[in-house]
């Protein structure tokens, strides 16, 4: 199993990661090796097996829809991690281009 350069760039793009040319070659080799190792799973017959996504067996764990002010963050605290603030809001990069 070997990944192409194009595939490496494709997944990097999906994950919003920028890679240098050197990175692409390095990750292409390393990721191909790891994915090659995954091939061993094909030895197992799972045709009658249900997938497991968790181990707790718990479902629909709910709490009352009440606001607990003691454990809520104040606006100042919520904004404390960023310098990009505008009128008490987070400033985000534009996602729609101007014509």
């Amino acid at each position, binding site marked *: 199993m070997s990944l192409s350069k194009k595939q490496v760039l494709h997944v990097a793009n999906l994950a919003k990661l920028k890679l240098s040319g050197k990175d692409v070659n390095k990750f292409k080799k390393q990721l191909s090796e790891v994915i090659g190792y995954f091939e061993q*799973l094909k030895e197992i017959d799972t045709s009658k097996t249900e*997938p497991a996504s968790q181990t707790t067996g718990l479902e629909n764990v709910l709490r009352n829809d009440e606001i607990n002010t003691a454990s809520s963050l104040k606006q100042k605290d919520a904004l404390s991690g960023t310098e990009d603030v505008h009128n008490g809001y987070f400033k985000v990069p534009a996602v729609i281009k101007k014509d």
Partner: protein
Amino acid sequence: MKLPLTIDETRKGLKEKKYSAVELVDAYLSRIKKYDSDLNSFITVSEDIAYKQARKIDDLIEELREEAFKKYPLLGVCVAHKDVYLTRGIRTTAASKVLSNYVPAYSATSVKRLENAGCITIGKTNCDAWAHGSSGENSDFGATKNPWNKLYVPGGSSSGSGVAVATNFTLVSSGTDTCGSIRLPANYCGVFGLKPTYGSVSRYGIVAMASSLDSVGHFARCVDDIKAVFDVTCGVDFKDSTLKNASKEEKQDKIKIGIPKEFFSDGLEEKVYDAVMGAAEVFKKANCDLVKVSLPHTKYANSAYYIIQSAEVSSNLGRYDGIKYGKKRKYFGDEAKRRIMLGTYVLSTGYYDEYYLKAMKVRSKIIEDVQKVYEKVDVVIAPVAPTPPFKIGEKVDDPLKMYLTDVYAATANLSGIPSIAIPCGFTKDKHLPLGFQLMGPRFSEPLLFKLGKLYESVSNWKPVVANLVR
């Protein structure tokens, strides 16, 4: 002043006024200052907060006397938190440059519970960035070194937490275990480590790695201390919805210990084999039955784990966009990039069924294996890693080789069961720590503690601290 080695000793010393909490903090900080520049086990030392908490504790003891010790089960216990635990007002980096300037506005449930029980937060420990790694070498703040021999790795990812307990930079420390990240450093540093049942300790306020696998546990120098911390941290907090208040009753009659043959096969170094079998003999001497068992899908656990984990990592690290807190994605290190890309790949169109869905099905097989084994035996004994500590740099350029370090860890995380790592001596040639793990069914921590204590008493185990020179 001679620093105490256990919680019991610490509380006794405080009660008898051999030292104050402030003096304890003095002593830990001076050890850290003297020795940690070589070992790099701390990213941040929280001196101001530690003294503030210590002064409060000294006041409490003055005011309430004996009552203070009844009210606060961990009064005066110094704890160092892995730097993925959010600590209000103390920088929390996950050992990544992405969070190098992040100061949380709230604390993790575990941090809060420990402080409410009387703990002193001494600092934040180094680890593999985002808890990605088995050696402590993936930290953006530099590798942590093994205190028994600085040329060797301390095990990861909770590397600094293992080292800080082994060196007595702190009395206890916290960690996370997504696939051995507590058990491996405990094993390589010669201390006790607990990976609790998934769903027993809250993940609230812990930087998420792989959400269906992350377990929140800790390190200490004896089983009693492991239990004392667990008693405080476990239980529902109405913030992490995977939690359940449960405890499997201790078994009173003869205990059966399973020896799974797949954990003792190819690739296991003889020194480790001998050490684990030696431990099994100790239990036999203590009137436990040893039973040969099989976990047939063990050799596939690592593959299934790396697919599921990387998929969950790619999703969890998707939130780091440099907008609300932290820096931009270009600050991710190589290992985080590898796992994000791997996870994105196994989840992407055309590969989902082949890798991710397949891995989830294999996970079911592994859970079935585990359930069957616990119909026959009460616990299972196994090595933690296939070799004793390895040299710094040995596996760093070969991610696949590094990933295979986790081969004996994956079963407990994939099936959500608890496991305690117990030290059992040193290699004869290089004097590096050896150990083993005991895995029980979900919520069987009481039985693991009972067996751990049995092992301590029959083998005459005494808490040890690595001999540091400068």
